[in-house]
C-alpha cells in the first residue's frame, strides 16, 4: 500500500503533547518522528497548525436505524461521526425493533459494514427497553457486546436492576475478564415524566412542567447502593446536575467501579435557552442551571467525569415544529462535539482528547483498537483537528438526515481536517471521502 504521511502536526495522546510527523501504511502507524522524510511515492497530508489525536470515540449515539431511517441511518450517523473526528461510535439500543437480541445486533453490524466509522453495538438491558425482562445478556456478551443500556430510559424497578447487576457480574467468564458495563439513563420517571424542561426558575416563568434534579439523583443513589452490594460495573450516562457530579465523586472515592459521561450540551447550555420555546432545546435530561454547568465542568477538570459523550439524537425537522411539550427530546452532537469542547471548555488539549478518545474507548471495551497512543505499531485510527479554524454550525449542511443542532448559527472554533479509519482517509480536508 501507499505510505501516507501526516506532516507538521502536534501529536496529542496519553503521553502528552509533542511535535511530530506520522507515517501510516496498511492500516497501521509505521513511524512517528519529529520529522519524517516522505518515502518516494507516498502521499503527504498537511497537519500543520493542527492536532493529531487518536480517533474520537462516542459512547452514546442514537443511530435510529433500524426503525427511524427518515431521521438518521447508520451510514449518515457514521459519516457525521467521521466528520466530527470519531473513528468509533457506540450505537444505542433505542431502535425499532430494539437492539435486545443477537439477531438485531447482527443486522446492525451487517448494515454498518463499510461505514466511515466503526459502529459498536450496545444492547438493551431489558427486552424492548420495557423494564420488565432481562435481555439474553450472555449471548449478547458472547457476540462481543460490552455495553448494555436501555438508552433513553432508566430501569425503574429496583428489584430488576439488582438482578441485572448480579447477572452481569457473572458474565466475565464469557468475556474473558472484560467487564460488562451497565450504562444507566438515570431518571425516576414518576418524578419527571410529566415535565419537559429543568424544574427551576425558567420552568416557572415559562409555565412549563419541570423535571426535578431529584429524578436523576434518586436513581443514581439507588444504583450506587446496589453497585456497592453487587460489585457491578456501572456507567452513568449524560449526568446533568451538580449533585450528580458529587455522587460520582463520592462513589469513586469509595472505590466503586463507576464511570460517568457528560454531553457537550449539558456542559455549555442552560435552561435559559428554553425561553425561545424552540423544541430544538428540548432534551432529556434537560438543560439545567449555570451552577450545574459549572459543576459538570469542575467534574471534567478533576477527573470525576470520564468521558464527553454526545447523546446524538436526530429528529426529523417537522417533529421539532410541534409545541415544546409535544416535541421529542434530543439534539445532534457528533459533528460539533470536539468544536464545542475546544470553543467552550477551558481544558488542556490532552484532557479534551482523553475525554473524547481513550477514556470512552476504555469504557466501551474497544481500547485494543481505538484511543491508542500515536506510536509505531498501533492501528491507524486517527483524527487531525485544526484548533483555530472557525466555522458556523448549519444543521442543513451536516451529514445527518436531521438538523436539530442546538448550536445552529453559532460560530465554533476547531475543525476536523482529516479522519483516518484503519489507515483509510474517510475525511480529507474536512470533506467526507467514504
Amino acid at each position, binding site marked *: 500500500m501507499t505510505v501516507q504521511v501526516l506532516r507538521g502536526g502536534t501529536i496529542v495522546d496519553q503521553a502528552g503533547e509533542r511535535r511530530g510527523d506520522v507515517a501510516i501504511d496498511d492500516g497501521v502507524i509505521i513511524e512517528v518522528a519529529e520529522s519524517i522524510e516522505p518515502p518516494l511515492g507516498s502521499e503527504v497530508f498537511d497537519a500543520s497548525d493542527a492536532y493529531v489525536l487518536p480517533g474520537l470515540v462516542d459512547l452514546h449515539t442514537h443511530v435510529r436505524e433500524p426503525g427511524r431511517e427518515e431521521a438518521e441511518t447508520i451510514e449518515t450517523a457514521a459519516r457525521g461521526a467521521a466528520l466530527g473526528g470519531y473513528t468509533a461510535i457506540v450505537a444505542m439500543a433505542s431502535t425499532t425493533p430494539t437492539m435486545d437480541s443477537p439477531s438485531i445486533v447482527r443486522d446492525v453490524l451487517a448494515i454498518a459494514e463499510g461505514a466511515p466509522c466503526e459502529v459498536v453495538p450496545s444492547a438493551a438491558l431489558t427486552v424492548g427497553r420495557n423494564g420488565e425482562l432481562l435481555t439474553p445478556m450472555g449471548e449478547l456478551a458472547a457476540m462481543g457486546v460490552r455495553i448494555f443500556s436501555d438508552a433513553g430510559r432508566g430501569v425503574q424497578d429496583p428489584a430488576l436492576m439488582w438482578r441485572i447487576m448480579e447477572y452481569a457480574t457473572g458474565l466475565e467468564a464469557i468475556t474473558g475478564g472484560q467487564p460488562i458495563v451497565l450504562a444507566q439513563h438515570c431518571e425516576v420517571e414518576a418524578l419527571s415524566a410529566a415535565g419537559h424542561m429543568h424544574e427551576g426558575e425558567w420552568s416557572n416563568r*415559562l409555565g412549563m412542567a419541570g423535571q426535578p434534579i431529584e429524578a436523576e439523583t434518586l436513581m443514581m443513589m439507588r444504583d450506587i447502593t446496589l453497585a456497592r452490594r453487587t460489585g457491578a460495573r456501572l456507567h452513568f450516562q449524560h449526568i446533568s446536575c451538580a449533585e450528580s457530579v458529587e455522587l460520582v465523586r463520592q462513589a469513586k472515592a469509595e472505590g466503586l467501579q463507576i464511570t460517568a459521561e457528560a454531553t457537550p450540551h449539558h456542559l455549555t447550555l442552560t435552561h435559559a435557552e428554553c425561553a425561545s420555546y424552540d423544541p430544538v432545546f428540548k432534551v432529556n435530561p434537560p438543560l439545567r442551571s449555570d451552577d450545574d454547568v459549572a459543576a459538570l465542568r469542575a467534574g471534567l477538570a478533576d477527573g470525576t467525569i470520564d468521558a464527553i459523550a454526545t447523546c446524538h439524537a436526530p429528529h426529523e425537522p417537522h417533529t421539532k415544529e410541534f409545541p415544546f411539550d409535544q416535541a421529542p427530546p434530543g439534539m445532534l452532537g457528533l459533528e460539533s462535539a470536539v468544536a464545542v469542547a475546544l470553543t467552550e471548555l477551558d481544558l488542556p488539549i490532552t484532557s479534551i482528547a482523553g475525554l473524547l478518545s481513550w477514556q470512552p474507548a476504555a469504557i466501551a471495551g474497544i481500547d485494543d483498537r481505538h484511543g491508542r497512543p500515536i506510536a509505531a505499531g498501533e492501528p491507524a485510527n486517527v483524527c487531525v483537528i485544526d484548533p483555530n479554524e472557525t466555522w458556523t454550525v448549519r444543521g442543513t449542511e451536516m451529514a445527518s438526515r436531521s438538523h436539530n443542532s442546538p448550536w445552529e448559527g453559532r460560530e465554533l472554533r476547531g475543525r476536523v481536517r482529516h479522519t483516518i479509519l484503519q489507515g483509510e482517509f474517510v475525511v480529507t480536508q474536512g470533506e467526507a471521502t467514504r
Partner: protein
Amino acid sequence: MKDLLTIDQLGADGINEIMKAADSFAEVCQRPVPKVPALRGRTVASMFFEDSTRTRTSFETAARRLSADTLNFSAASSSVNKGESLRDTVETIEAMGVDAIIVRHRSSGAPQQIAKWASASVINAGDGWHAHPTQALLDVYTIRQEGRSFEGLRIAIVGDIRHSRVARSNIEAFSALGAEVTVVAPPTLLPPHVDALGAKVSHDIDAVLAETDVLYLLRMQRERMDQALVPSLGEYHRAFGLTPNRASRLADNALIMHPGPMNRGVEISPEVTDDPRVRVLNQVTNGVIVRMAVLYLVLSSAAAERSAS
C-alpha cells in the same frame, strides 16, 4: 406591537396605552349600535387548540364590533389530532389570508412559536400554564374602573398558582403598575422556585384578608385532586375558600374578582357570589372592551409597519 404574547413585553407604558384605547372603545360599547368600522375588511381568525367558549366569544364579539371578518378554526377537533405539526396548521390558516390569529393552546409557548412562523399578528388567548395577557389587561381595566390607583394596592391571588396562566400574567401586570401582590396557596399549588414570580407568598388566607384591597380567586380544577396536590375539594374550601365569615373580614371597599367560570362551593361559597364587592360580570363586560383595544392596536401597528417597509 405586531403580536401580543405576554404582559412582560408591554411594561407599564404598554398596559396604559391599551387602557387608554379601551376607554374610547368603552364609549363605543355604550352606543345603541355598538360598532365602528375600524377594522373593516380585516380578517381575524380564532384558533382554539383548547376549548374555551367564553374567551373565544369575547374575542369574536370584540372583532365584530370593530367590523372585522371573523373566522373560527376550532383546532381542538381538527387536523391537529391527525398528527399535523403546529407549523403546518398555522401555515394552512395563514394561506387563507388572515390579518390576525387569536391563539388558545394547552401547550405553553405555542403562541410564541406561531408568531415566529406567521406574518399575521398573533394574540395570545391563553397558553398552558404560561400566560393569558388579555385576562390580565381586563382585570387591570376592571380595577382601574373603580378609580383605584395601583401604586401600593394590595392584591391577593388565591388558589392554584402553580398551574395558572392567569396568575402569572396578573402578577406581571399588577406588579408592573406598582401593586403589592401576595399569592396564597398550599405549598403544593405554588410553583417550585416561587421567588421567580416576584410576589409575596402566604399559605394562610386568614392572615392576609384584613390587608387586602383586591381578593383575586382562581378556579380550582378537579383534576388536581388526582395528583395528590390537595386532599379534597372540601379541605381546600375550608382552608382557602371565600366563605361568608372570611368575606366579612374583607374591607367594605375591597374588590372580589375571579376569571370564571366559578366553582361555587370550592373557591367561593355560593352565598358570597352575590356580595356587592364581587366584580365578576364587570370583568366579562370589560373583556370585550379590552380585546377591542388589543385587536385595534395590534392590527393598526402591523399595518403601519407594513406600509413603512
